[in-house]
């Protein structure tokens, strides 16, 4: 009709020709898809008849295979031969279901022709051979053309013309008993994308054609709109197989008219509707038993509809058999019954659609706002806690009470109004209320502080300059964090995250070194003492720093060899080290790997012990010390044995099979037992120091060593082992099921980087201050406020630790669990030899650790009295400052974590129509939020553990003083 049709218009002229020339043979429908309109979700919808939701929770992460009852499963079960050709997404969804299949790669969106040409090559011979009951040909060219060029492009015209020609010749090949269904699984927007729920995306066409007449009625002017899921019961019943269990579609009764008169046609349609309604009712019934998300009264209403219709149906059938009804009345009753079944089916579908498939935009925005304000809150609280002491109650406790109060009120209101309690809503309202409370209190305090500040002699210019400098100092790490967050919005960057994160990390480190140099901190003496310590010490520090940086970079780079691959990067090869030992063919390589693992493990234990010994721990006879001494080697032994057993080939041991079975279970349990014992011991008594030591030689060497290191050593050591264990066992289990793959990829892609990025972002804030402090003179460290920089230090060291951990544990097959626990603990002694007094022991990569300096004896440095004095002072000032620092650390950590999570959430929200949302953004979002939850919990645990150790230390110290 148009004078100048667009490229995508008027191209399928053959369909039009069929529909107009043979109205009883062909009909065109408007085919409405349910969102999400991504290909995989649509295939699921077209075969199961249900609405695929965000993530199919029940399904296995490792495989996409549809676990629900579906059309193909039914067809195969009933002995139909299903032949497939085209998009290889189907292969993953229906593994081994097809009688014959020709899959072609669908991943490359830019490739318009491979799939289509492949199908065309096989289509006609297969059709002619007749060796099939159902033939599915999934063409991709039009879809890919949309993604590549958009609909408004000459390529699209070419593609559609090709399809038209294909249809024309296909119809020539059809037999008389064949039904041809031509359908689009989704539409596309003006840019050629799909995935969302806009009109253009959900509308496609369905064309039905057969060489035998199908329809009794004339086609309507405007094509009738039918939901996509209607195809499922229709095809199932046409082919004589059961309707898939979870189908909520309504059968297309027109196709069941048959050749007979109106009454027999109506009866046939009625029976079809009856089957369909029974199936839907059964599904709704069993669904409502397990899930509560369908409103009860509506379900009841539906139930009534159904039972009355069924009752009438049986009556009617009886009457028909008794032939008591005359045609006109019969017809009208049949008609009304059919419409009642239709009503039932439509209402059931509407109910399900309403409760399953929706983007709740308001809640999405609300959630984002909540996260954003929480981040802001964390940031402000961390700033506040540094500046004032007494704010805990007003700014942290009261808001909590507010939140609880609101939650309680809401709960009461719900209880009174007898409505169902939406836990999600209540908790989010509570969170919002507590945040409001915080800001309100903060606002209330703010003027007071401003006044206080004003009362002090102001130095505006200096203050301004300092603030500017502070801002600049923040700008670089924050810029990196910003890049990091921005990267969440690009699917390519999310896919390449495993490489982007180390890149940013390396940049940050180099930036730091450069900045330090630029500021002259590496060369110019700062402390008064430095001046007579001379140039050489600086030189040494620089070299250490450079060596550390180089080692760090190398470790980061090396850890790249242990990456899993994502399927989006085709040229990527999975690392050799990731495969479990048992799967290695080459015996020599296997032995080598095994030995390497064991040696590394033993080396780790040995290093830990010697380190502890070196710094004077492990000299008491507490059970914990005993544990460290004997438990660790035992653990190592167990692990080594387990590896040996697990990696040996199954059949090689023959008779010992049963023994092996026992061993496979026993060794891990031994390790778990030992580890938990160690943890318990640690909780009971975190001190491993023999108190007498200090008293014995008050004048000479040993200053009180804090028990902390041991605790951390425990962590350092035991937790990785646990995880290794779990990884191992997980791995072997997975192996048995032979279903690994994508999950691991996700795991590593997002997880690895999650932890890494955590570390990375952590460095962010007071990074420069930290290092400058690190490199500052040793006595600076004694006398001035190093405590406030606590968090900074942790982060720095924590981050180093993380990478070293990677490099040491490298040979472990790291798997899924790592992802759930970015908390894999790790530790690293950052011993700055320039100041041997400083010992950092952050134990869990993102957990704050207790960092204690041990004023070690330095013969030339300080007098003993001074040292003892210092010691006491530090401990005395500990309680308040220490807890402040801990809090600040926790808050800052939460802040960076939260920022990252926010970016993820926003990406998932804004890009919810993106082509890649189900493949990239949604999993990323899930992993990120899980990681956030896990690491928040671990943060709390870590802080409480540190508090515990701190308590123990202070009581111990009190005892010491009393003596």
């Amino acid at each position: 009709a148009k004078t100048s049709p667009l490229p995508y218009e008027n191209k399928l002229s053959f369909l039009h020709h069929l529909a107009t020339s043979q109205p009883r043979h062909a009909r065109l429908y408007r085919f409405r898809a349910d969102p999400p309109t991504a290909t995989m979700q649509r295939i699921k919808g077209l075969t199961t008849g249900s609405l695929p939701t965000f993530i199919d929770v029940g399904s296995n992460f490792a495989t996409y295979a549809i676990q629900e009852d579906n059309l193909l499963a039914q067809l195969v079960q009933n002995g139909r031969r299903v032949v497939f050709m085209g998009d290889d997404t189907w292969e993953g969804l229906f593994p081994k279901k097809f009688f014959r299949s020709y899959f072609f790669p669908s991943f490359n969106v830019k490739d318009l022709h491979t799939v289509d040409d492949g199908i065309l090559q096989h289509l006609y011979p297969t059709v002619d051979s007749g060796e099939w009951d159902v033939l599915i040909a999934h063409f991709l060219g039009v879809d890919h053309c949309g993604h590549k060029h958009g609909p408004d492009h000459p390529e699209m015209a070419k593609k559609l013309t090709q399809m038209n020609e294909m249809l024309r010749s296909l119809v020539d090949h059809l037999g008389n008993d064949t039904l041809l269904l031509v359908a689009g699984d989704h539409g596309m927007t003006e840019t050629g994308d799909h995935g969302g729920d806009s009109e253009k995306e959900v509308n496609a066409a369905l064309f039905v054609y057969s060489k035998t007449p199908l329809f009794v009625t004339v086609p309507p002017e405007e094509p009738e709109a039918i939901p996509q899921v209607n195809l499922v019961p229709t095809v199932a019943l046409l082919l004589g197989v059961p309707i898939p269990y979870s189908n909520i579609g309504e059968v297309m009764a027109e196709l069941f008219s048959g050749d007979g008169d109106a009454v027999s046609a109506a009866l046939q349609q009625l029976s079809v509707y009856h089957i369909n309604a029974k199936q839907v009712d059964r599904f709704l019934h069993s669904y409502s038993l397990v899930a509560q998300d369908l409103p009860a009264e509506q379900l009841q209403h539906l139930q009534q509809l159904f039972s009355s219709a069924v009752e009438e149906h049986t009556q009617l059938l009886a009457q028909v058999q008794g032939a008591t009804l005359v045609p006109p009345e019969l017809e009208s009753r049949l008609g009304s019954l059919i419409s009642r079944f239709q009503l039932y089916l439509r209402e059931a579908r509407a109910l399900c659609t309403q409760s399953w498939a929706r983007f709740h935009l308001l809640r999405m925005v609300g959630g984002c706002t909540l996260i954003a304000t929480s981040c802001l809150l964390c940031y402000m609280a961390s700033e506040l806690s540094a500046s004032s002491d007494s704010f805990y109650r007003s700014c942290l406790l009261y808001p909590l009470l507010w939140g609880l109060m609101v939650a309680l009120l809401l709960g009461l209101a719900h209880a009174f109004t007898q409505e169902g309690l939406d836990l999600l809503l209540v908790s989010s309202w509570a969170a919002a209320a507590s945040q409001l409370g915080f800001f309100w209190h903060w606002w209330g305090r703010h003027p007071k502080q401003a006044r206080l500040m004003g009362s002090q002699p102001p130095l505006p210019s200096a203050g301004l300059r300092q603030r500017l400098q502070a801002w600049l100092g923040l700008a670089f790490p924050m810029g990196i964090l910003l890049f990091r967050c921005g990267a969440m919005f690009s699917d390519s960057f999310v896919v390449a995250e495993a490489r982007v994160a180390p890149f940013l990390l390396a940049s940050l480190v180099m930036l730091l070194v450069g900045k330090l140099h630029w500021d002259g901190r590496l060369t110019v003496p700062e402390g008064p003492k430095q001046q007579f310590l001379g140039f050489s010490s600086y030189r040494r520090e620089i070299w250490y720093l450079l060596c550390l940086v180089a080692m760090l970079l190398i470790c980061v780079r090396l850890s790249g060899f242990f990456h899993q691959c994502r399927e989006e990067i085709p040229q990527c090869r999975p690392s050799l080290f990731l495969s479990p030992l048992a799967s290695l063919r080459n015996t020599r390589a296997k032995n080598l790997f095994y030995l390497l693992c064991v040696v590394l493990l033993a080396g780790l234990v040995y290093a830990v012990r010697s380190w502890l010994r070196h710094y004077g721990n492990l000299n008491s006879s507490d059970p914990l010390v005993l544990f460290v001494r004997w438990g660790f080697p035992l653990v190592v032994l167990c692990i080594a044995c387990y590896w040996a057993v697990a990696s040996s080939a199954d059949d090689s041991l023959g008779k010992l099979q049963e023994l092996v079975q026992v061993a496979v279970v026993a060794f891990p349990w031994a390790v778990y037992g030992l580890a938990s014992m160690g943890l318990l011991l640690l909780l009971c008594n975190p001190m491993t120091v023999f108190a007498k030591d200090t008293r014995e030689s008050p004048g000479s060497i040993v200053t009180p060593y804090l028990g902390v290191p041991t605790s951390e050593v425990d962590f350092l050591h035991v937790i990785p082992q646990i995880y290794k264990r779990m990884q191992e066992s997980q791995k072997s289990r997975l192996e048995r099921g032979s279903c690994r793959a994508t999950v691991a990829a996700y795991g590593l892609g997002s997880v690895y980087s999650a932890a890494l990025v955590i570390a990375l972002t952590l460095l962010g804030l007071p990074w420069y201050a930290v290092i400058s402090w690190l490199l500052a003179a040793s006595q600076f460290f004694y006398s001035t406020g190093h405590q406030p920089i606590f968090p900074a230090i942790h982060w720095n060291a924590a981050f180093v630790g993380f990478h070293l951990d990677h490099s040491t544990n490298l040979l472990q097959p790291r798997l899924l669990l790592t992802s759930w626990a970015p908390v894999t603990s790790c530790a690293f002694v950052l011993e700055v030899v320039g100041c041997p007094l400083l010992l950092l022991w952050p134990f869990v990569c993102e957990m704050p650790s207790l960092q204690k300096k041990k004023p070690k004896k330095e013969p030339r440095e300080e007098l003993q009295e001074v040292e003892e004095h210092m010691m006491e002072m530090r401990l005395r000032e500990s309680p308040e400052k220490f807890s402040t620092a801990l809090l600040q650390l926790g808050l800052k950590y939460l802040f960076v974590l939260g920022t990252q999570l926010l970016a993820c959430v926003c990406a998932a929200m804004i890009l919810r129509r993106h082509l890649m949302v189900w493949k990239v953004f949604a999993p990323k979002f899930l992993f990120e939020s899980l990681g956030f939850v896990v690491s928040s919990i671990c943060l709390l645990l870590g802080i409480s553990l540190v508090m515990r150790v701190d308590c123990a230390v202070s009581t111990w110290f009190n005892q010491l003083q009393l003596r």
Partner: protein
Amino acid sequence: MKEAEIRRLLAANLLCVFTIILTAVVPSFFWDGFTVLGTHLAWLCICSVCVSTLNIILHLVLKPNQSHKRSSFAHKISRFLKCCIYFFMSCILFHAIIVLYGAPLIESVTETFLFAVLLSTFTTLQCLCMLGPNIQAWIRVFSKNGAMSIWESSLQITTICSILGAWFGAFPIPLDWDRPWQVWPISCSLGATFGYMAGLIIAPLWIHWNRKQLTYKSR
């Protein structure tokens, strides 16, 4: 005097920029099929060679560091050799750093190394020309308030700009646009080149802008 020197600096820098543009344009007249993207390695070589020659010539002509003592021929030779060694070492170092940043270790070694050479040309070579093989001087120049002449300020700016350009050049690599310039190391070397050119242009302007604040203390 300062104004005149800034003008000389500007002229020299513009000459450099011009040369780089020429390296991209001129070879295609002599060599069919030469494009910066298509025959990238060749362009990398040409660009490095041209820029280094130009820099050396400029250095000989302009003599920006005045403190030149008369020295023996042998001394000069040893100095030159030292410079060569330094340059080579910087290439190796850049290569290592690039690999640490995530460049492939074994595949496309040539590309990575030529990129390192290009970066060295933009950074190390200038330092060598300006300061000689004297690490202490380098360290001094690349710290705050370390520059002692406008030449050294310009050196600072161009070096930082080149490295920043190379860094930003890595950003488009993961994107799935399928452009020819996204191939390693094209985007990075282009980024470095553009950064260098930008630095060359920015430096005189910045110095001119800040000429009141810039007070160079002499040694």
